[in-house]
C-alpha cells in the first residue's frame, strides 16, 4: 500500500470524521468535543505538512474513485491545492480554538462544530479536487455545510440571511452544473490539466460554446466569490457568529469560489487559450468593477461586520483580477492574495467578534476609544486593516505588488489605477475605524460588557487574532523565505500555470 | 359480431361520460361498472372471429377474471363512499374544502 494514494483522502477524512462524531455527541460533552476538534485539526495540519514537504520534493499524491464510466472522483495534491489546504488547515485550527471560546455556553454547539468540521472538509475537498466533477461535488457540499452555520443563531434575520445565501449559491451551483455537463459532453473529460488546460484542441470547433461555458462556470463560482452582481448574499450572511464569518470570508466559501475561478482559467481553459477566446478581458473588468464597487459600498456601512463583508467582496476580486490579467506575475499575485486576504480578513473578523463578545460593540459608531480598552485586539485589527489597504510590509502589499507588476508585464496599465483607487477607498473605510478606536475618548459604558478580570478578553479569543495578524505580517515581511506564500505561489506558477 | 363490439365501445363512452359528468360517487361507481361491461363486450364479441362455431375462450377467462376484479373494486369503492359520506355528509368528492 502506498501512502501517497491515501494521503489526500486521509486529509479529507481527518476533519470529516470528528465532525460526524461530534454530531452524535450530547450537548454537555464539552471536553470530548474540544478534544475531537483539536485532534482533527492537528492531525490535518500534520498530514498537510507531510504533503507539503512531499510536493516540494516532487512527489505525487493522488486518490481516484470511479463515479461513472469515464468520470472519476479525483483527489490530487498539487502545489496549488496545497497552498489552499495549508491555509485552510492552519486557519481551521485557529478558528476552532476561537470558536470554542466564542460559543461557550451557547446552545446547539454539537451541531455547530459538526457542520464546522464538515465545512472545512468540503473546503479541503474543493482544494484537492483533481477534476471539475470532484470540484463540483465538494463545492455543493460546502453550500450545504455552511448553510446551517449561517443560520446558526436561529433568529428570523438569520433565517432570512440563510435563505438568501441559498438562493444565490444554489443558483450558482445550477449554472455550474450546466457548464460542467456541457463541457463534459464536448470533451469527454473534466480532468484539470495544469499548464494549458484541456480545451485548446477543440477551440476552433466550439468557439461560441466554450465562451458560454466559461461564462457559466465563472458565474457559478462568482456567486461564492461574491463577484458583482452575485454578491448580495455575503453582507446578509453577516448575522452568523463571528467564527463562521471569519471562516466564510477567509477560507471556506468565498475562497472556494475564487479558487474555482483560478481552476477554470488555468486548469480547464488554460490561460493562453482563455485569452485567445477573449474571455479574460471581461472577467478582468468585472473583477475590477467589483473591487471598486465593494469598496464604495463598504464606505457607507456602520455595522462593522457588514463593512468587513463589503471589504471582502472587494478584496476577493483581486484574486479573480490576478487570474484574469493572464500573465505569470499577476497570477502569482492572485493566488498569493488567496492566502494573504485569508490571513488578514480572518484577523479582522476575529477582532470584530472580540469586540462584540467582550464589549457588545457591533457598530463602528460605538467603537470610540476601544483601542485603549482592548489594545491587543485593536493592534491585530490595525495590522489587518493596513494589510488590506496594502501598506507595506504587510501581506496585502505583496499581493498588490505582484498584481501591479503583472499587469504592467502584459501591458494592462489600467489595472494600476484600479489598484490605486481600491487602496484609496480601503483607506477611506478602514482608517476612520482605526482613528476612532485609537484616538477618540472611550465612553463611560460599553454597550454590553463582559468581565474578564484583568485581561482585556478571554485568552482563547485573543490568541487567534494575534496569531493570524503575526502571520499576515510575516507573510509580508518574510515574503522571500522558503515556504512563504509568495515562494509557494512562484512554485505554483512554475509547475502548474505556465509551460516551462 | 362487430355490432356487439360497437355497442361495447358505446357503453365504454357512455360510462366515461357519466363518470365525468356526475358528482355523486354512487353514480361514478355505476359508470365504472358500465365501462367495464363495455370493455368485456368488446373482448368477447371479437373473440367470435375464429371462423368456427367455437369462439376463442381465452378472452372468456379474462372477462371472468375482470368481473371478479370489478366486483372487488366496487365493494371497496362502496365502503369507501359510505365512510366518506359518514364523515362529510355527502357522497361526493368536494373539490374545495381541501385544507
Amino acid at each position, binding site marked *: 500500500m502506498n501512502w501517497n494514494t491515501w494521503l489526500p483522502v486521509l486529509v479529507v477524512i481527518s476533519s470529516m470524521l470528528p465532525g460526524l462524531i461530534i454530531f452524535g455527541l450530547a450537548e454537555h460533552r464539552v471536553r470530548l468535543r474540544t478534544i475531537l476538534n483539536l485532534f482533527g485539526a492537528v492531525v490535518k495540519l500534520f498530514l498537510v505538512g507531510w504533503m507539503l514537504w512531499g510536493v516540494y520534493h516532487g512527489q505525487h499524491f493522488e486518490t481516484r474513485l470511479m*463515479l461513472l464510466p469515464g468520470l472519476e472522483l479525483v483527489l490530487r495534491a498539487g502545489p496549488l491545492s496545497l497552498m489552499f489546504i495549508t491555509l485552510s488547515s492552519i486557519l481551521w485550527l485557529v478558528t476552532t480554538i476561537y470558536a470554542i471560546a466564542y460559543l461557550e455556553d451557547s446552545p446547539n454547539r454539537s451541531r455547530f462544530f459538526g457542520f464546522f468540521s464538515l465545512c472545512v472538509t468540503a473546503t479541503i475537498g474543493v482544494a484537492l479536487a483533481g477534476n471539475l466533477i470532484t470540484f463540483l461535488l465538494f463545492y455543493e457540499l460546502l453550500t*450545504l455545510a455552511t448553510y446551517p452555520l449561517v443560520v446558526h443563531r436561529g*433568529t428570523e434575520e*438569520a433565517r432570512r440571511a440563510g435563505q438568501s445565501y441559498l438562493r444565490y449559491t444554489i443558483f450558482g451551483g445550477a449554472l455550474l452544473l450546466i457548464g460542467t455537463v456541457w463541457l463534459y459532453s464536448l470533451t469527454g473529460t473534466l480532468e484539470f490539466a495544469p499548464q494549458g488546460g484541456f480545451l485548446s484542441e477543440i477551440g476552433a470547433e466550439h468557439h461560441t460554446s466554450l465562451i458560454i461555458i466559461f461564462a457559466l462556470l465563472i458565474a457559478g463560482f462568482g456567486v461564492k466569490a461574491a463577484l458583482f452582481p452575485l454578491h448580495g448574499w455575503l453582507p446578509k450572511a453577516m448575522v452568523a457568529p463571528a467564527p463562521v464569518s471569519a471562516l466564510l470570508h477567509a477560507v471556506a466559501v468565498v475562497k472556494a469560489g475564487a479558487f474555482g475561478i483560478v481552476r477554470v482559467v488555468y486548469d480547464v481553459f488554460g490561460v493562453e487559450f482563455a485569452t485567445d477566446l477573449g474571455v479574460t478581458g471581461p472577467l478582468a473588468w468585472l473583477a475590477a468593477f467589483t473591487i471598486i464597487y465593494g469598496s464604495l459600498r463598504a464606505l457607507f456601512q456602520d455595522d462593522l461586520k457588514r463593512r468587513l463583508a463589503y471589504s471582502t467582496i472587494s478584496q476577493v476580486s483581486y484574486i479573480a483580477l490576478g487570474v484574469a490579467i493572464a500573465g505569470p506575475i499577476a497570477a502569482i499575485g492572485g493566488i498569493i492574495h488567496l492566502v494573504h486576504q485569508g490571513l488578514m480578513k480572518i484577523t479582522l473578523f476575529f477582532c470584530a467578534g472580540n469586540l462584540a463578545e467582550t464589549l457588545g460593540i457591533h457598530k463602528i459608531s460605538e467603537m470610540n476609544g476601544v483601542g485603549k480598552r482592548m489594545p491587543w485586539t485593536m493592534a491585530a485589527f490595525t495590522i489587518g486593516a493596513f494589510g488590506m489597504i496594502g501598506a507595506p510590509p504587510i501581506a496585502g502589499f505583496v499581493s498588490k505588488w505582484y498584481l501591479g507588476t503583472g499587469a504592467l508585464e502584459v501591458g494592462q496599465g489600467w489595472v494600476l489605477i484600479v489598484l490605486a483607487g481600491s487602496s484609496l477607498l480601503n483607506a477611506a473605510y478602514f482608517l476612520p475605524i482605526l482613528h476612532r478606536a485609537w484616538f477618540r475618548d472611550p465612553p463611560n459604558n460599553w454597550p454590553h460588557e463582559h468581565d474578564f478580570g484583568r485581561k482585556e478578553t478571554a485568552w482563547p479569543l485573543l490568541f487567534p487574532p494575534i496569531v493570524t495578524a503575526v502571520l499576515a505580517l510575516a507573510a509580508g515581511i518574510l515574503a522571500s523565505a522558503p515556504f512563504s506564500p509568495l515562494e509557494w505561489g512562484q512554485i505554483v506558477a512554475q509547475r502548474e500555470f505556465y509551460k516551462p | 359480431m362487430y355490432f356487439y363490439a360497437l355497442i361495447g365501445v358505446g357503453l365504454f363512452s357512455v360510462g366515461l361520460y357519466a363518470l365525468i359528468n356526475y358528482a355523486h360517487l354512487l353514480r361514478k361507481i355505476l359508470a365504472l361498472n358500465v*365501462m367495464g361491461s363495455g370493455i368485456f363486450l368488446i373482448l368477447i364479441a371479437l373473440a367470435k372471429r375464429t371462423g368456427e362455431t367455437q369462439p376463442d375462450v381465452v378472452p372468456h377467462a379474462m372477462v371472468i377474471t375482470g368481473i371478479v376484479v370489478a366486483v372487488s373494486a366496487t365493494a371497496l369503492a362502496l365502503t369507501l363512499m359510505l365512510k366518506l359520506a359518514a364523515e362529510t355528509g355527502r357522497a361526493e368528492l368536494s373539490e374545495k374544502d381541501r385544507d
Partner: protein
Amino acid sequence: MEVVFKEFPWVAVLILLPLLGGIVCFLFSGIAKFTGLMTVFFTALSVLGLGWQIFDNGVYRHAVGGWGAPLGIDLYADGLSLLMLAATAFVALGVSVYSAGYFERGYSTRFWPIWLFLLGALNALFLTADIFNLYVTLELMGLAAVALAGLAGGKNALTGAMRYLLATLLGSLVYLLGVALLYHGFGTVDITLLAQRAEASPVIWAAFGLIAAGLMLKTALFPLHFWLPPAHGSAPPPVSALLSALVVKASFYILLRLWLEIFGPLVSNTDVSTLFGLLGAAAILWGSVQALRQTRLKLMIAYSTVAQIGYLFLAFPLATAAGVAAWSAAMYLAFSHALAKAAMFLAAGNMLRFGGHDRISDLDRVVQRLPLAAAAFALAGMSIMGLPPSGGFIGKWLMLEVAIKQGRWEIVIVMILGGLLAAAYIFKVLGHTFTQAPSPHESKAVPASMEWSALLLAIAAVLLGFLAIPVLSLLNIGNPFGISEVTP
C-alpha cells in the same frame, strides 16, 4: 452451493413469499409484525439472489405452468426489472422497519397483510411479461394501495383514497381496453410476441393511446396528477412513502416497458416523445411551484413527487437519439427518487408524530428536537435537488449530458429550474431546523427505529451517488433499452 443459489427459484420466492406472508399475518394477527418484517427481509434477500442469478446467467425467463408464451404466462427478469425490484426491496425494508414502530396494534393487524400483498403485487408486476397479467397485478396493487391510503381514516384521508381509487380504477379500465385491442389485433398478450407480431396499424395507435393514457393517469403525470397530492398527502406517512416511492413508479415501469418493446418502434416516435417531454416539463415546473406554495409538509412532498415524475418523462424525447443513456438516466432518477422520497415521507412522519401537525410554518418547534429526522429530510432533499454526490445528482448528470449533447436546451433549462425550485421548497422546510422556538405543548416520543429507518433510507439515496457504475451495469443486463436504439 453456488449452483444451488444460481438455480434457486428466486422469482417464485419474490412473488409467493409476500403473498403467503400476508396470509400468515392475516391469520395470526399476534405475530403480524414479526412475520411482516421477516417476509420483507427475506424478500429483499431474494432480490439479491435474483440479481446474482441474472448477473451470471443473463436474463431470466420462466414459463408459468410450463405452457409457454402465447398460451401461458411468462415471467421475465432483466436489468430493468431487477432495478425496480431492488428499489422496491430497499424501500420495503425501510418502510417496514418504520411501520413496525409506527402502527399501533389495531392498525398493525390491518396494515401488515395489505402491505405484504402490495409488495407481492409490485414484485409480480416487475416480473411479468404478459400484459393481461400486468392488468391483474395493477389491480391488486391499486386496491391494496387504496386500502392503505385510507387506513388513517378521517375526512382528508378518505377523500384522498376515494379520489385515488376512482383514478386507479379508471386507469386500469382504460389500460384493459388497450390490452383487449392488442389481443384481438395480434392474438397474444405476451410482450415479446407482441413485439414480434405487431405492426403499425390503427389497433396499435388506439391501444397505445389507451394504454398510455391509463398509465399516465396512474403515474400521475401532469395534468393527470390531481389525485396524487391528496392521496399521498393524507395517507399515513409510511403508506405515503410506499405510494410515492413505488406505486407510481410501477405504472411508469409498465409504460416504459411497453414503449420500449412494443410501441416505441411502431408509433410516430418523435411526436409522441415530444408530447411526453412537454408534459414532463410541465409536471416539473408545475409540481415544483405547487410544492413551494404548500403550507403542509406532506402535501409539499406529494407535489414534489408530481415534479419528480416529470423528470422520468423527459427521457422520452431524449431517447429517440440516445436510448440507453437517456433511459439509464431516467431509471437512475427513479431509483434514487424512490429512496429519497420514501425517506422524506418517513422523516415527515416523524415530525408529524412528534409535534402532532405538519404545518410548515410551525415546524420549528418540532424539527429541532428531531435532529435525525431533520438530517434524513436534508439528505433526502439533497438527492431530490440533485446535489452531488447523491443518486439524484448522478441521474440528473446523465440526463443533462444527453440533453446537452443533443442540444436540447429547453430540457436543460427545465431540469435546472426544477432543481432550483426543489431547493427552494426543501430549504423552506430546512430553514425551520435552525430557528429558535419553544418546544411544542404536547409532543409524542418517536421510536428510534422510525428515526433510523428514515435516516438510513436517506443515506442510501445519497450513497447511490457512488454506485453508479455497478447499478448501471446491472441495469443493462439483457439490454432492456437496446430495442429503441433507432438511429434517426
